[in-house]
Structures are given as C-alpha cells and as structure tokens.
C-alpha cells in the first residue's frame, strides 16, 4: 500500500488569490519569459553566427572523446563472414599506381636525431604482421567491416623511438590528389596514445590482398578508434613532435581528435 502511494498522483493545492495579484503575477511572468526568449534567441544567434558556440561544442566534444579513450579498451572484432564492401572514398582523384615502385616511408623526430627511410619490404620483414577484422566508420555516417593486416604502429614506435618530449605524430601523404588530379598533400594528427593502441596498424593488406591503390597502397594507417578520415592512405612521412600538428580535415571545419 505504501509502495503504491509513492507513485500515485497527488492533488495539486488550490490557492485563492486576489484578482489584482493574479493579473500582476501573470503579467510579470509573461514579461520575464518574453524577455528571456528574446535574450536566448539574440545571444544564441549571434554566438552561432560567429561560430563561437558551435566551435566551443566541437572542442568540448573532442575533450569528451579523449576522456572516453582507454588504451586498454579493445575495438570489437568480427568474423570473416561479417566482412562488408569497403569503398574507395579518396576525396580527390585516385592516383595512378606509378608511385608505388619508388615509394619509401620517411621517419622524422626520432630520439636518435636521424631520419630513417624504409621500403615496404624492410618494414614487413623486420616486424611481425598482425591481422584484424574491425569496423571502419566514416564521418559521413557509413561504416564497413574489413579484414586488415599490417604491422603495429606500436612496434614501429619501439623500433624507432620518437624524441622523448613527443606527444604527437604527423602522418603525411605526398601522393594525395585533389579533385582535378593535382597534388594535394594529405596530413593528419595522431596522438601517441592512439598510435600505441594495440589495434592501430600500419596496414599493408585488405581482405587478404595487398592494398589496392584506391585503399592506400602500399601502406596506410588503420586506427579503428578514429573516424575514417584519420586513416590516411599511402603514408610517405611520419614526424613525431611535441605540439599538436595540423590536420587536413580540422582545417576544413571538422574536429581534430575524431575519436569514436
């Protein structure tokens, strides 16, 4: 009985007020609400017009994403029967395969103070190759489940340690083209905790085949904890640095951290 009454609707108290008081209070409340509505609209639209409010929300959302990240939380993996088609979503033109034979990966910002230049054969023979079937999520809203293979970014970081104060990696592709087929270098910022995640790969294979040109042959980033736009194709240079590097899509109004 007592339990029932806790959920039972209570009678609202009826109050008798003088008509004058009632009119005065109603008028006051209307004015307060009207002024507030006007204020909210004026402030909201002017802030929005300057992009201030939305930009603050974008930064706040990046902080939330970074707080949600845990180096120990693994990305869900799938079986081969769950693999779906992954489309080539190169923003510009897909480059021709001519670059692959001369392709090399350059590493900068290393603790040794030297620059390192690797070819794909060296990279694959010196490091263990790992497989994983994970979901790839695009900022546009679509997703695909794909089977990737490659070396762990973490293994590369251990083999060629960055300078001690480094917190960021700048990954760059000089191969990238714009919509008219002109060179349009692509670059992303990756925080080192993400680079060290056990499922962050420098991928060389997709669905059991060496990467096609459309998917970033011969080496692309596969960081399943990030949106697809961070997963840069045809990486040509990795630079470790202390300060946050620029990011291709962040310069075009998207968020910088892109953790999912």
């Amino acid at each position, binding site marked *: 009985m007592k339990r029932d009454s806790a959920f039972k609707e209570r009678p609202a108290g009826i109050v008798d007020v003088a008509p004058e008081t009632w009119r005065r209070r109603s008028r006051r409340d209307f004015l307060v609400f009207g002024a507030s509505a006007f204020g909210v609209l004026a402030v*909201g639209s002017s802030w929005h017009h300057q992009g201030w409010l939305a930009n603050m929300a974008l930064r706040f959302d990046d902080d939330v994403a970074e707080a949600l990240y845990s180096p120990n939380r693994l990305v869900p993996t799938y079986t081969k029967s769950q693999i779906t088609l992954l489309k080539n979503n190169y923003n510009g033109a897909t480059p021709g395969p001519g670059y692959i034979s001369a392709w090399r990966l350059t590493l900068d910002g290393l603790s040794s103070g030297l620059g390192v230049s690797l070819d794909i054969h060296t990279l694959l023979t010196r490091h263990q190759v790992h497989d994983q079937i994970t979901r790839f999520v695009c900022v546009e*809203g679509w997703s695909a489940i794909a089977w990737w293979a490659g070396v762990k970014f973490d293994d590369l970081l251990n083999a060629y340690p960055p300078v001690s104060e480094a917190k960021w990696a700048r990954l760059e592709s000089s191969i990238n083209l714009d919509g008219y087929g002109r060179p349009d270098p692509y670059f992303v910022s990756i925080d080192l905790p993400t680079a060290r995640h056990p499922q962050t790969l420098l991928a060389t294979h997709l669905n059991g085949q060496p990467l096609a040109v459309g998917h970033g042959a011969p080496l692309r980033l596969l960081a399943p904890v990030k949106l697809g736009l961070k997963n840069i194709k045809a990486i040509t240079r990795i630079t470790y640095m202390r300060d946050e590097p620029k990011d291709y899509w962040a310069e075009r109004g998207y968020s910088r951290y892109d953790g999912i």
Partner: protein
Amino acid sequence: MAPHFTQGHKEPMATFTPAAPPPCVSVVRRHHVLVRVSHWLIIPLLLGLIVSGISIYWASPIYRHNPDPQTGSADYFADAGIWICAHLPEGHDCASRRDWIYNHTSLGPSMLAPALRLHWCCAYLFMLNGLMYLAGLLLSGEWRALLPRVSDAVGAAKMAAYYAGTAFAILQRQPRKAPRQSTKYNPLQRLAYFSVSIACLLAVLTGWAIHKPIQVSWLAAIFGGFDSARVWHFWLMWIFVLFVIPHVILVFADGWDTLRGMLTGWSRRVESAGRANET
C-alpha cells in the same frame, strides 16, 4: 495535447460572509519553473538538431535504391525533391532539384562540417535541458502525473476518438462534452508526454551509440550495432515531428489557459485538482 474542450474554469469562490465577498481567483500550480524553461528551450534545440541532422543524413543517406537511369538519383529524399519541383508552379527556383528537400529542411547539401558542429552543440544542450526537465519533475513531484496507468489503454483510445470526433463536431457546430477527468492530464496526454520523454532518452542513447561506436560499443550493440543505431536515430526524429503537430494544434484548440500554464506555471482549471487541505 490538452484536456477540456468545453469545460470552463471555475468562477471566483464565494464566501459565506454576509458582507460583499472579496473577489477571489482560484488557481492551481501546473508546471515547475524548470519544466517550463526546458519545455521552451527544447524548441530551438530540436530545430537545430533536425536541420543539422538532415544535412548529416545527406552525406550518407540510409534509404537508397539503384540509381534511376533518368535522374541519376539513388536517394529517396532526392526523388522527393525531383517530384516536388516537377509539381511546383512556374517561377519557383528549382535549380538543384535533387537537393530541394535538403535545401528546404536543413543547412543544405555539402554542409557536413558545420552541420556536425551545430549538431554537437545542440546535442549537449539538449542533454542538459533534459536533466533540467527531470530536476523540475522531481522537485515538484509532477513526475507522478506523467506516469501511464493500466487503465490508460482504454482511456487513451477514448480520448483519441473524442479528439477525432471533435473535428467533425466543430464542422457541424454541435457542442461536445469532453470525457470526465479527475487527473492533471488525460490518458492520451500521459501516454504522449511519457512516450516523447522516452523518445528523447532513446535519441540521446542512439546518438551516443553512433557518435562513439567503439568506446561505447555495448551501447551500439543494444540497438543492433552502429548501422542500425543510425536508423533508430533517424526515425526518432520523425517521432518528434509527429508529436509536435497534434501537440501544437491541440494546445491552441484547448485554449488560453493551457498555453498560459506553460508560461506562468499556474492554471485556473481547478476541477481536476484537489484542495490542498482535502485528503
């Protein structure tokens, strides 16, 4: 949605003193101030979420078919735009027929980055607003009036039939009496307000499921995975749209007291409220 179509409010209470009675207005507390503030703030927030949400949808439409050989369109919203432009009178601007729907209901096509910024901005404020609404309900105890009851299944159907019949009654100029009501809301209102609150909660949960499908992958899994959580999120928008239309019509049909109640917090309809000193 609101009650009382034909019931008037109570006249000022008479007292039993032989001298001229002091005129008095009987009023009853209707909505807590936090409930009222969150009720009005949700309007611009939902509007911002919908116009940005449709721009986000444009970037990767869920409902697609094989490209139409004539129009090249593979998106049903684009088809609808083409259809509308074909039926608009001369003189209307139909430069981009495939984008007509997006141009008229959203920030527009190719606006993904600004749309995402606006969507996050409104989404965080939407969640804060929801907490404010809950706080108002809890502080005032008004949450009890919103809980659906077992008998509401029949009661809600009766109210729906009454509202549907009222449209005809107005056309035939016949007076109509509302079903008797002894609670703050009628059964259909309870069902609608309760469901739309649950829809808000689901919109937030599916939103997080598609925003952070890796870090909160368990949440995406509840809705059947990332792709199907997107479908949920899309249809929840339609629930809000479908709620708002009868909600606004019925508030205006129901009269001034209902609208004033959401502004000032007080109502002069005291029939369905008990006297404070009565038990």
